[in-house]
């Protein structure tokens, strides 16, 4: 910022005496830009047991299932799960498989399809510590985390919720201006955030082809790593043609995993439907611990990602009805 504006200053003499320099700056063109592509196995290897892990998606939409199954396969333990305000299968699977020590959540279930059987069993048998949060805890905790703030004070009156009393992470702070005490949620900064999106380029620029839910907040709040799995790998040039569509900027993304059908059996918005048949079968089978174990054996532990897709039937997934969604430019919709 200039205090006053001087006349334009124009140096127009010629420079000979520097052309002897051997090390031209332009000779520093050494590195190519590095891509961030990893296999799902490599990406999950970045997650240490004992980490706090945020999982994206909402309900049965946009859940990073391929990565979640690989976490189970690699036998991660003692994870502290941070869930979006509506978590489903991704959470139930990790909890049932014993990967999680504790969970911060405001909802784990299967919406219209039913309750989360493994979560329910784990809580009823006291096998997991639950930090019951409200939706605002998750959202504003992540917002505070993304801004490097220690906490976020909630609007007055939220203490009527019993979680504010029973979840020890909530706390109160006094406003010195008024003397009033305010219910606060702590900042959430997951060690690792895992999200799935329809598209991503090799440098980590993400495009959601539907709602973004808390995915972007989770990515921004991550302390160490952001892992993105995507159905479609797009070029940097495609990203640059409509930069406004980028939902998570590449510079905060550490790993891009190209994982077509990576949400199955949940829905990847604009690409494929939730597989209700599979989900209902899971719910039915997982009503017992033994059934859940069988599901794990059959669909998770013995199969790597391509084998899983083979097992559930690639043709079947891609054939799921898309109901008239145009997933093209700017995510616009037309009636079917």
């Amino acid at each position, binding site marked *: 910022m200039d205090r006053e504006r001087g006349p334009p200053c124009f140096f127009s003499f010629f420079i000979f005496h520097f052309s002897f320099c051997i090390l031209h700056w332009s000779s520093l063109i050494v590195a190519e830009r590095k891509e961030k592509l990893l296999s799902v196995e490599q990406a999950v290897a970045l997650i240490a047991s004992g980490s706090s892990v945020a999982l994206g998606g909402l309900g049965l*939409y946009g859940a990073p299932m391929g990565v979640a199954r690989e976490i189970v396969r690699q036998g991660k333990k003692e994870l502290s799960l941070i869930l979006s305000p509506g978590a489903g299968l991704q959470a139930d699977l990790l909890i049932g498989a014993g990967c999680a020590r504790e969970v911060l959540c405001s*909802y784990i279930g299967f919406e219209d399809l039913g309750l989360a059987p493994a979560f329910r069993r784990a809580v009823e048998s006291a096998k997991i510590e639950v930090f019951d949060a409200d939706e605002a805890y998750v959202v504003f905790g992540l917002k505070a985390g993304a801004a490097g703030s220690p906490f976020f004070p909630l609007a*007055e*009156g*939220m203490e*009527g919720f019993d979680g504010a009393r029973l979840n020890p992470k909530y706390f109160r702070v006094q406003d010195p201006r008024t003397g009033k005490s305010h219910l606060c949620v702590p900042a959430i900064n997951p060690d690792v955030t895992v999200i799935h999106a329809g598209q991503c380029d090799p440098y980590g620029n993400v495009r959601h082809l539907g709602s973004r*839910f808390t995915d972007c907040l989770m990515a921004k709040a991550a302390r160490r790593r952001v892992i993105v799995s995507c159905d479609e790998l797009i070029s940097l040039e495609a990203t640059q043609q409509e930069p406004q569509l980028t939902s998570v900027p590449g510079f905060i993304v550490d790993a891009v995993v190209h994982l077509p059908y990576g949400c199955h059996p949940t829905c990847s918005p*604009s690409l494929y439907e939730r597989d209700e048949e599979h989900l209902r079968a899971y719910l039915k089978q997982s009503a017992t611990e033994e059934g859940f174990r069988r599901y794990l054996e059959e669909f998770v532990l013995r199969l790597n990602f391509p084998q899983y897709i083979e097992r559930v039937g690639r043709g079947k997934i891609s054939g799921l009805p898309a109901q008239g969604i145009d997933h093209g430019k700017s995510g616009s*919709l037309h009636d079917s």
Partner: protein
Amino acid sequence: MEKAAAYTIPELIAVTLARHIEDGWLAVVGTASYEAAIACRLAQMTHAPNFTWLFGGIGAANPHLKPMPPSTADFRGIRGAEAVIGIDEVDDYELAGKVDLFFAGGIQIDRYGNLNLVCVGDYAKPRFRGPGSVGLPFLSRVKKVFIFTRMHNPRVFVNKVDFISGVGHLDGPGSRARAGLKEDDGPSLVVTNLAVMDFDGASKRMRLQSLHPGVSQASLIENTGFELLRAESVRVTQPPTDNELRLIREEIDTQGILQRI
């Protein structure tokens, strides 16, 4: 005289909710709330053109729901909407006290309209674990709450909830005020598969207003785990009109979710 059409209980619930929506309100519809979403659209198409509602997880403002998608998290729910906002922005409006109406239910609902989505039994070791409170804690920041459920039975309608996910009238008269909330806000309507109820202004207790066609008072009492007050004249719930049913089936729920669930 027109032949009145057949209807389903979810359709009756939606129509009843719609009739109680006031023009000019702002409402939020949460997870797994087919009847509420359809009620909102129906109210707009009938008596409440200046009513605004936000569709849950996808944050669509005033979508057309033609058809009703399978979930509030389904992006196709934005069809015909005027704006699409983030979950965090929906939360902003709720926290800021700008929302007039929230639709809610619970695994337990008590006589003061308190709602529970977390557990039955002791919180530390529950007999039954529910999905969690989701957006119900916002109830303390909204003006009116319409409660609805398809599960009117004594396990759901209990004398006192085991966990408060969403505040109702707490322990009765004065208790909202003591908690720093407005005494006159809170749950004002309950629509179930059996009946329509509201809350008595003085005692804040749930009060029967109308029984659905074909439902007996004995059956209602049997299915409610606490003593219901009765309005001076208990009526029969007015079924959907032909026009309401036509709007639902032809203009909103064109895939007939309310006829299936």
